């Protein structure tokens, strides 16, 4: 196929990989920070306090119903102005992904905690375990198992959603691709096909293993 040579041009592939690293970095940091936020949110959501419940409900529903791109815009353009946050595009992405990931993960944590049958708590009680022992030895290990497959899927979604960062001007893999397309637009007029094609597969290569891991975990832990 004519034009494919662009991929062999010196610098092209390394730069795309560098861009991909930015993508993965944003996703990685977001996922990493989402975990503590999600655990906290999940725990808050199991509380009976009506005020906390309502606040959490609004938080979760708002995050769920707004497109991620809209959230990014709100964070990038809105927050910076409203509260004078010096939030660059990357920071806005991380913030939004953490708020979003935290909400979704929180809901998963809540679901996992609530799905553990009452009899588990009761058995632990009857065996004399203290509330903390019950939580750490019995409830949490089970909750984590129920949580993990869906969390890995969530991570995949966060990686995919990092693609939106380009629309805020972050120089990640797509932007690098566009720069390359632009820089080579005279020699390789068909570069778009190849560069976007490669980016498509780069995302696939990053996300696919995650999907497989999620499915494996799901299968392995399906029985309990």
């Amino acid at each position, binding site marked *: 196929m004519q034009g494919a040579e662009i991929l062999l*041009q*010196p*610098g*092209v592939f390394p*730069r795309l990989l*560098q*861009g991909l*690293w*930015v993508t993965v*970095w*944003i996703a990685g*940091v977001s996922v990493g920070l989402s975990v503590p936020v999600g655990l906290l949110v999940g725990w808050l959501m199991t509380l009976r306090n009506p005020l906390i419940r309502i606040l959490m409900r609004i938080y979760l529903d708002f995050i769920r119903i707004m497109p991620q791109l809209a959230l990014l815009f709100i964070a*990038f*353009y809105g927050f*910076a*102005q409203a*509260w*004078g*946050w*010096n*939030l*660059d*595009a*990357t*920071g806005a992405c*991380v*913030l939004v992904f953490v708020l979003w990931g935290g909400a979704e993960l929180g809901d998963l944590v809540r679901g996992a905690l609530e799905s553990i049958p009452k009899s588990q708590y009761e058995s632990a009680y009857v065996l004399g375990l203290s509330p903390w022992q019950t939580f750490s030895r019995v409830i949490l290990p089970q909750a984590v198992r129920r949580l993990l497959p869906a969390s890995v899927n969530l991570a995949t979604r966060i990686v995919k959603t990092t693609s939106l960062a380009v*629309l*805020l*001007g*972050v*120089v*990640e893999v797509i*932007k*690098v691709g*566009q*720069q*390359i*397309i*632009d*820089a*080579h*637009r*005279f020699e390789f*007029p068909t570069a*778009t096909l190849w560069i976007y094609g490669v980016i498509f597969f780069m995302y696939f290569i990053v996300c696919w293993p995650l999907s497989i891991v999620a499915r494996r975990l799901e299968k392995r832990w399906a029985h309990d």
Partner: protein
Amino acid sequence: ACGPSASTPSEAGDTASASGNTSATKARSLDEIKKSGELKVAVFSDKAPFGYVDKDGKYQGYDVYFAEQLAKDLGVTPKYTSVDPAARVDVLTSNKVDLVLANFTVTDERAQKVDFAKPYMKVALGVVSPDSKVIKNVDELKGKTLIIAKGTTAETYFGTNYPDVKLQKYDQYADAYNALLDGRGDAFSTDNTEVLAWAKANKGFTVGITKLGDEDTIAPAVQKGNTELLNFVNDEIVKLGKDKFFHKDYQQTLEPVYGDEVNPDDIVVEGGEL
């Protein structure tokens, strides 16, 4: 420090720590810039030959050339942030950069939000269209689809003066050019220098309208009220004008593309004087 080396994400670390700091919107003083050793400049990364990333991943272009000189004179290194046309005002108001050098046309609306320094370039709008159906007159555009990049002068100009031209807007110049190449619109309009350069490189396309609207100037911009930096930039422009710096800039960056079809004096503004 743990961030990736590619570009902006390295700033994410700063962001995380600074995000609680509400005073951060205030522009940095000259001293602070010197102390940090970095001048943060917003440039285009996909608008050759004004601001683009070359094959080696380095920022290049007419705007960048100027930015390098400014940083040098300030005794710091430039640090580039890639911007979309539409984001140029916001990166300043939210103090994400110190300076915008991204082919920023001076308009009244913009002047209300940011402070422009003296101009270093002048442009009018140009319209490029395929050879097969060259658009030679703005009236021919009626009912046709005109491609533009978001946040450019072309957008405001056609939006207010020619409401019956259908505008098709892209975030990036690269996207816009591709759209024109793929025949998604009848023409593409942006600064005439830009379309001239592009048409020269792309066979089958002609700039049918070379001058449209008022002649506009292009100038660096700083955050509103940042007079310290503004004065420094103005002084620089005057000082550099004496050495015909921008003609040198032109030779280095624009001439290889424009060749001798364009008279440098149609574009370059020296010493901030039209």
